[in-house]
């Protein structure tokens, strides 16, 4: 709906601008603060035009007061303080990519079955799947832990991957079933008449037609795995199997007090990939969510 009245349009634009600024300000603040000394941040001086005093060691070994506006020292400290940062990154990227891929692969196959095959207990099974969405993962933590112990999957990337795939599968099934049900039956019939098998229909018709839904599921799954903390903390013990969210909490000093400059630098490094993924796929994300909602 177009707003023609200039005053209404101005008010609307100003309101949207205000909401936009409010949304983006925390991110800009984190980015600006990541280039400041902790002392400056704690004295509310995070913006680049605000200067601050720090003690630096001169070549003579003498400690001298220096005026600075920005510094890269937080990023230098990330490299030294967060030991194993590269391992955490690799683990998180692998888990997010592999977990998203497996969730989509298994979830879409299951959703295809639920949407297009009529079999005894179809709705009951689907209802059971939906019911499990309502149980918070934390409630099942001890059971999952025992399962991990018995299957010798504790403290392994594979165990964590299995937990993530299982946890995100239901969301994929839920969204993709609705997406697949919204695809006209005529298209499937036409493909069948042309001699396509169910397997070919899945790959040649359902997947291309449901790509918006897949992208939405992909982003949601990727985000949830990338940010997941609780299972990663509980199911892993060694530095080799840790993920980025757990690694970031290790920056905390006792009682949760942090070197906030270093924290912001690390947080920036951790959310950049997510922002990039979201920007690349946001078109599909919005479309996919609405596609999934139509037949819900």
């Amino acid at each position, binding site marked *: 709906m177009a707003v023609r009245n200039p005053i209404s349009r101005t008010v609307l634009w100003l309101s949207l601008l205000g909401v936009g600024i409010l949304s983006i300000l925390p991110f800009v603040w984190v980015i600006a603060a990541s280039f400041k000394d*902790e*002392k400056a941040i*704690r*004295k509310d001086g995070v913006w680049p035009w605000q200067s601050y005093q720090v003690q630096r*060691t001169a070549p003579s070994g003498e400690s001298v007061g220096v005026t600075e506006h920005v510094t890269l020292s937080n990023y230098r*400290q990330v490299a*030294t*303080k967060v*030991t194993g940062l590269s391992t955490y990154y690799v683990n998180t990227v692998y888990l997010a990519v*592999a977990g998203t*891929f*497996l969730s989509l*692969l298994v979830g879409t196959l299951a959703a295809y079955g639920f949407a297009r095959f009529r079999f005894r207990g179809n709705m009951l099974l689907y209802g059971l799947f939906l019911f499990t969405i309502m149980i918070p993962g934390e409630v099942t933590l*001890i059971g999952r*832990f*025992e399962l991990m*112990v018995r299957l*010798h*999957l*504790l*403290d*392994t*990337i*594979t165990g964590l*991957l299995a937990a993530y795939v299982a946890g995100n599968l239901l969301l994929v099934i839920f969204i993709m079933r609705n997406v697949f049900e919204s695809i006209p039956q005529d298209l499937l019939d036409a493909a069948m008449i042309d001699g396509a098998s169910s397997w070919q229909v899945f*790959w040649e018709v359902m*997947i291309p037609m449901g790509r918006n839904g897949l992208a939405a599921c992909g982003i949601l799954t990727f985000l949830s795995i990338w940010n997941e903390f609780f299972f990663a*903390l*509980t*199911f892993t*013990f*060694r*530095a080799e199997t*840790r993920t980025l969210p*757990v690694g970031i*909490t*290790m*920056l*905390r*000093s*006792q*009682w*949760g*007090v*942090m070197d*906030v400059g270093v924290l912001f630098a690390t947080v920036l490094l951790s959310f950049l990939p997510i922002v990039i993924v979201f920007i690349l796929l946001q078109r599909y994300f919005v479309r996919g969510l609405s596609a999934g909602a139509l037949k819900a």
Partner: protein
Amino acid sequence: MVRWTCIILASVILALSAAELIWHRTPVEVFRGREAEGAKGVSVVRVGIASWQAGEFPFAEAVRRYEEAQGGRVKVLVTTLPEDSLNAMLLSWHFGRTEYDAVLAWADEEIFPFIDYNRNSPDPAARSLIVDVREYLTKEELASFVPAMFGGCTRKDEATGAQRSYEIPWMGEVLALNYSREFFKARGVKGVPQTWEEVEAACEKLKGLKDESGNEIAPIALNFAQRGFFAQNCYVPLLAAYKGERGILDSKGRLDVSSPECARVFETLKRWYDRGYISRHAFVSDDVEKDLEVGVTAMYPHWQSRGLWAVAKQKPGAVGIAPTPGAREAGSLVATYGCIIPKCAPNPKQAVEVCYEIFCTDKYGFQSGVSKGFPDPVTGNISKGGKMPVLRSIYADPELPEGIRALAPALEKGYCAPDPLNWAKVSDIIVVEFQRYLRGSTPTAEAALAKVHRRMAAEVYGD
């Protein structure tokens, strides 16, 4: 195309998972350990340390020196742990599985779930997930510790009446009055306040002070946001001083919240707040913790380490550390950090020996690092330190920081937070009810403390 990409990707993931599982079932350390034990007589001790401690204490250097001294017979593998891994550890040890032979840096209250595990079991051996270290330390080793350091981890066995201690202390904290000599001098505050009344008088003199940049200096920084810090740094020291030798416990052995002195504590803190003595960061735990370090407060009653860290950040001699008012008569609150050894560890005796040798004595420079600081691996500057050593003999070192030497006598009358298992819950109730009183929702200190008493009885002790 999509189909084949999916098949290839799925195959790669499966192959990687299979490779990881095979690798995990035969980890290289186990091979190394087995081979070493069999061939060279080398044993491996796996030690977990909390992440916040990794940069604060010279673990790597002390372990390296220890291994060298052992001539390669013992290998100590150190892993840093996220601070919140407590529950995972409990679960893992419950299933008889451990990645560590010893875990360091656990606060007193945090180890009690391990101690209380299976506490009602008729089989004494099934009680607790961690070993009683008294069974493994020699008499001489036990006698070498400052006794107060065992206060937080010792429990009486109800069946036998024996005292059991569940951690090997490696570092302590004592409550102190950390203060700025510079700001005291600027406003003519002479000497260190010996009573809380003198603290109040000093606050009045210090009010309105500003630094050279015009930033306001708070007379005193108190943490009203974090439950533990409120209870231990605000409530307990004032209560201890007001009650004197009667101590901070009530007749049931719980933290006293019902005597008239308790109301006096609440009233005093509120009066200071109303008069503007207290740092504006009082409700932001992270910020108030840094107030003394960044020079925006004149006094900070807290652990001595906060004072000693501020010493390192401020001009030489600018920050002083003294016992809290009343500590000479009533003693000081002490907190300890120790090594715990899981019962499921393959060789608890060796784990205890290694922990004592490396982390409690100063043979490998660890206790020096704990108290005096150690060179930062990046800059080479001496940093951190500021913690109380655990062995009596170390206090004879004349090079210990002035603050630590000044507080050593306070350890003799040291006491730990009562009922560590419930300390967090009790602190939570006290700070919440204090805040309600501070903001006027509860009219009087007596009413606020009556609420604390009722809530403690109902929510913590089930009276």
